[in-house]
């Protein structure tokens, strides 16, 4: 498949090379190891493949989805995929030859600009693998910047982000990773202050946190900076249409999962790691960055820049080993933000707020108990009268994704259900959800 050398072509080419068969070109491979038996399924034509893969896809069941927990369903305008699936973007690679890659380079520059504006941060990289790896790389950057040895993080971080953070950092010599507990669904600032010793390099917290609650970032920021440590904030990019920005509360690094900006859920991958920081830390920022340059006529052009940080130049002294990132997902994000504009992003964020709060009110009216009283964006926690696991199972049978069973994180959270409602949900959807959850009212 997909090769186009005819037997005649091959003959000519082999003659030119001066060998009699293609297998001669593999003579440097140990002889006994060449051409092993491969037990693979039969080859499919495009037509048969199309039918087969559609049947496979149909084994996924559509859900009326109220699951968030780090990956959310949002509306994606058709123009996003129509543009990003153009072969000129899709089948190009890293813009090493800048003169023949100005399209990709300018879109990355515009992406960096839009994200900086949305976050109120100084600089942004061309993208990371996902929110979790961006967080880990940000904490690693903090360790390099201040040479201290303790990374503090809030218990309110996404549990998978915590695992990735530990996996990435556990081999740093002398490192201490410490979790700051929650109180009433948000970081216990008093406990944080006690742990902010001289050795504290940084504190990482998510807002909204994994329980959907907004963290008291002003208070956290002054505590962290007062102790001479750095603040790493994990944000929800879409929420920043209305919520306080990391720039406002003085985050040194702000990272995020950017899937909510124009990218489908795709079972969680590819994600889009967003990585921003204050400009004084740009040389510790891992990953590709696009900047403005001039061509020899003095015309504006775009190039990959500050490459002295990167692995292909610095090898073992590089800030990170990252090279391929999630460029196409970043392109989706910048097209999405360009289509929405400042007013649109605000309205979509408002709609998320509105839907989630409507759902909370409807559930309360039906007698449900909402676990935390603090401010939230589009996700909140319900306490049920039975394990959340049971509710998830029961609603799945009705074609509803009930939410995330928090019992998967902690045993004592077994009856807690994390529920997300985005702008995609109508009033009817919300009512259908409340009805489906009827038998699970806490106290009944």
């Amino acid at each position, binding site marked *: 498949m997909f090769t186009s050398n005819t037997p005649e072509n091959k003959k000519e080419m082999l003659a030119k090379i001066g060998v009699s068969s293609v297998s001669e070109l593999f003579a440097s491979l140990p002889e006994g190891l060449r051409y092993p038996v491969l037990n693979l399924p039969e080859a499919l034509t495009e037509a048969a493949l199309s039918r087969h893969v559609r049947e496979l896809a149909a084994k996924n069941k559509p859900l009326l989805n109220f699951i968030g927990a780090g990956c959310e369903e949002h509306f994606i305008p058709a123009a996003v995929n129509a543009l990003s699936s153009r072969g000129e973007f899709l089948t190009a690679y890293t813009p090493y030859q800048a003169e023949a890659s100005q399209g990709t380079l300018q879109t990355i*520059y515009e992406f960096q600009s839009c994200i900086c504006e949305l976050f109120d941060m100084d600089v942004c990289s061309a993208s990371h693998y996902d929110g979790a790896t961006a967080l880990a790389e940000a904490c690693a950057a903090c360790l390099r910047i201040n040479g201290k040895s303790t990374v503090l993080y809030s218990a309110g971080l996404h549990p998978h982000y915590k695992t990735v953070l530990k996996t990435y950092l556990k081999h740093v010599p002398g490192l201490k990773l410490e979790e700051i507990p929650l109180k009433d669904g948000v970081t216990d600032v008093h406990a944080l202050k006690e742990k902010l010793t001289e050795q504290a390099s940084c504190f990482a917290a998510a807002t909204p946190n994994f329980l959907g609650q907004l963290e008291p970032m002003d208070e956290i920021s002054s505590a962290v900076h007062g102790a001479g440590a750095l603040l790493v904030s994990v944000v929800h990019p879409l929420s920043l249409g209305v919520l306080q920005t990391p720039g406002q509360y003085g985050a040194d690094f702000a990272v995020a999962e950017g899937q909510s900006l124009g990218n489908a859920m795709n079972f969680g991958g*590819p994600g889009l790691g967003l990585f921003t920081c204050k400009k004084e830390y740009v040389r510790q920022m891992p990953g590709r960055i696009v900047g403005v340059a001039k061509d020899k006529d003095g*015309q504006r052009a775009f190039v990959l820049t500050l490459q002295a940080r990167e692995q292909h130049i610095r090898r073992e002294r590089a800030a990170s080993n990252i090279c391929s990132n999630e460029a196409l997902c970043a392109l989706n994000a910048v097209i999405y933000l360009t289509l929405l504009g400042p007013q649109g992003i605000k309205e979509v964020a408002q709609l998320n707020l509105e839907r989630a709060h409507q759902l909370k009110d409807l559930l309360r009216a039906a007698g449900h108990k909402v676990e935390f009283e603090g401010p939230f964006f589009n996700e909140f926690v319900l306490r049920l009268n039975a394990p959340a696991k049971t509710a998830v199972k029961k609603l799945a049978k009705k074609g509803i994704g009930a939410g995330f069973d928090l019992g998967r994180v902690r045993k004592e959270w077994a009856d807690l259900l994390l529920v997300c409602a985005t702008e995609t949900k109508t009033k009817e959807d919300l009512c259908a959800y409340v009805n489906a959850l009827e038998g699970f009212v806490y106290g009944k």
Partner: protein
Amino acid sequence: MENKLSIEKSVPGRRGVRVETPKGAPQAYLPAGCLRKRAPRLPEMSELDAVRHFTNLSRKNYCLDSHFYPLGSCTMKYNPKAYDVLSVLEPFAQAHPFAPEEAVQGTLEMLYELQEMLKEITGLAAFTLQPAAGAHGELTGILTARAYFDARKDKKRTEVIVPDTAHGTNPATSHMAGYTVVNIASGPDGCVDKTALKNALSERTAVVMLTVPNTVGLFEKDIREIADMVHAAGALLYMDGANFNALIGVAKPADFGVDLMHLNLHKTFAAPHGGGGPGSGPVGAAAHVAPYLPKPLVEKKNGKFTLNGKMPKSLGKMKAFYGNAAVCVRAYCYLRQFDGTTLKNIAENAVLNANYVRVCLKDAFPAYFDAPCMHECVLTIQKDKMNGVHTTDVAKRLLDFGFYAPTIYFPLIVPEAIMIEPTETENKESLDAFILALKRIFEEAVSQPQTVHDAPHSQPVKRIDEVSAAREPNLRW
């Protein structure tokens, strides 16, 4: 050519997409202290303005669909259009990573079958699809090795041996995983110098990282012996599979004695490169290291597919969710279009094309190591004949002839390196046209070098002064 930024075309009040009008102000739900103060400076454009803006930007790119893209080490093969359609099917796109497993059986089955096919092709015992890119796969592999040694309480192994031909990611990865990098020089034939390796191996060696075929485009002919040396020292052999396009269907890395390796689904397995991702970098492991792979793995139990996170020896997690599933669909589709006998056609045609280019160019741009190559050839320039024309100039001039440039100045051990990887999907006519262009450029360098020095002449911008960008970085509007 017009090169305005979107923000420079912005007109207050224009909208590209209308959403429902929210009923209440944010203050109705949140305390004032939680709210954003200043609106972000995002472009305001109509949908048509935005469509035209990005369409016109796309036209400033060379890409595989329009141009031969012989970027060495990147395997820019054709990305079949059927997979563009199949990878975005609604049920795949709408699958939530925390959906009840009965609602995502299609995705899980696809991932499981892909794992199984990769195991068969490489001969390795287990595969994880979790890593998001090649470098991410490397880090996964090296951390897997680390978890293996930690479990054996073998704490004295602190070094990773890397040949000087390695991709920069190999030493950078080893450093990220907390290892000291030991570089070894290659032999005069471009392959690993066994004496250098022997001298570097010790009880401190954790892993030897080899790219196979290596980055000068040659197969490590002593691979079996090397594997034995590595294992005798108690270390593990890691294979960087970025160049697996040369071997697919022709040999199984497990047979070489490889313990761990990564594959690049966006190279060998026909997923598009997307201007720099998303990729996918699955990691395969031999049975003795498989328990240390990141969790979870997809398993099949009683005819149902499930994510098994119960892996007590696992190194942890490399990414929030299980892999770049949308990229995996494409690799799955690709492999389903081959069978056990046709798979080798990929490697055979890739190797044939690379050798053809190498031989046809020997008078203008000779190969640095004069031997049959695998899937790519590494050429150099004839300094004495080319009037100060450098590899960069040749690369820029190629753009004028309608070709993207090869990888240049890599590997580092080859002076003025030009690394050409044609891939199996190019036909003889496109190779001939490319060869002719390079011969012309050679002649130009001899007779009218200024034309080459001043290239490109045909692009939206002239030669860019890259240093000007780093002097006073302008990284956003």
